């Protein structure tokens, strides 16, 4: 790939009003310079790293982020106070605990129906699902084949953007039940139970042996 494309890629990302995908960048380059232009999405991704390294070396206030399967310019955290002071966008309220809980269930188990969500949370989730739909963090992707054909919910690109994620697999993995079981306080508790039951069975065996001796 020719070096000129570093600037082309930068210009395309800079001028885009939302996340721009590698495919779109490719389309623009090939649309202008011909289909046989030597450039791949992998190379584009490498350029992003180069550009960001440049910005860092020059101590610039922004970077290109990988968000929702594409690229987007964003200010660095160092200036959050100043930027936030003027921007009404940031005064938006944070998500409630209930919203975060519901989102984490949907994100990990999608597509998922309302009854399944409610079974995990143990509470009615009508209101919270509507709020999340309104905020465009989730959407309805279809209907389940199960009885009553309930609606299926999935997370959106807006969800990825909101949490600064590139892909769903970048989500932190929920701890497996086994892992929670291996938690220190649980191990301690488990050890106690094990010991107790071990003692029980040993006592049983002893009394068994005693019985055997007697007969």
């Amino acid at each position, binding site marked *: 790939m020719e070096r000129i494309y570093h600037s082309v890629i930068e210009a395309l990302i800079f001028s885009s009003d939302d996340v721009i995908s590698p495919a779109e960048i490719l389309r623009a380059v090939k649309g202008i310079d011909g289909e046989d232009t030597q450039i791949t999405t992998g190379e584009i991704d490498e350029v992003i790293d180069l550009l960001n390294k440049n910005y860092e070396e020059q101590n610039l206030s922004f970077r290109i982020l990988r968000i929702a399967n594409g690229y987007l310019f964003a200010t660095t*955290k160092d200036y959050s106070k100043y930027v936030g002071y003027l921007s009404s966008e940031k005064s938006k309220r944070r998500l409630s605990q209930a919203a975060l809980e519901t989102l984490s269930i949907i994100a990990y188990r999608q597509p998922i129906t309302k009854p399944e969500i409610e079974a995990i949370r*143990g509470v009615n989730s009508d209101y919270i699902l509507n709020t999340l739909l309104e905020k465009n963090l989730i959407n309805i992707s279809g209907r389940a084949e199960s009885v009553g054909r309930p609606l299926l919910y999935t997370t959106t690109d807006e969800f990825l953007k909101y949490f600064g994620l590139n892909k769903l697999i970048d989500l932190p993995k929920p*701890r497996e039940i086994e892992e929670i079981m291996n938690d220190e306080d649980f191990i301690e508790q488990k050890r106690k139970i094990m010991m107790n039951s071990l003692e029980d069975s040993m006592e049983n065996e002893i009394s068994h042996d005693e019985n055997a001796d007697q007969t």
Partner: protein
Amino acid sequence: MYKIKLDHFEGPLDLLLFFIKRDELNIYDIPISSITKEFLDYVNLMKMLDLEVAGDFILMASTLMHIKVRMLLPREVDEKGEEIDPRAELVKALLEYKRYKEMSDDLAYMESNTRKISFRGNFSADEKIAVPEYEILLKNVTVFDLAKAFKRIIDEVKEEPIHQIKKINVTIDEQIEYILNLIETNVEVHFLSLVEKMKEKIRIIVTFIALLELVKAGRIKIKGSTDFNDFLLMKGDE
């Protein structure tokens, strides 16, 4: 009036997890009797404070009492002959819920991180109204330029298109009459020739409805024609 602040719980599972953590209980060996009591105390407290007790809490209270009763009865046995712990399902639900609750903490952390950065975008807000530069605007402008500009604007103003709506007087009764007359004079009538000369869509539709009425009443009969899109009409049997 006193104001008492209650810890906010997302639901009954959250409350149970709170008890378990606070009292350092073993989640696999929950003392059902004492935790049921605590749970009910909390629900009663909610009632006392005139808080609306959600049905979910009531449901959990009854589930807990059900488990408590089953704990007193001889244990049921599964296919493998192992004793079933009446608490097993509750434990599973608690662990499952705990898992996502933990993940929501991760999400909250990511949320606060993302809030620290601002994405480029929001272009409509970026748009600034350009300050007109009067000097440039007024350079070399003569009266003729103004007149020319005025004429261009006048020419460009298009006339509002006027749509006239004509009312077409056609009734089903009229069309019935029309069809019957045609069939009286000609033995067989092609449907297409019936509507051929009609220009308005509504007239054709009304004629067709009239036709259906006649067929229904048995006053005319319909026969398929060799032409795929056409059919023949003739007098009915009555």
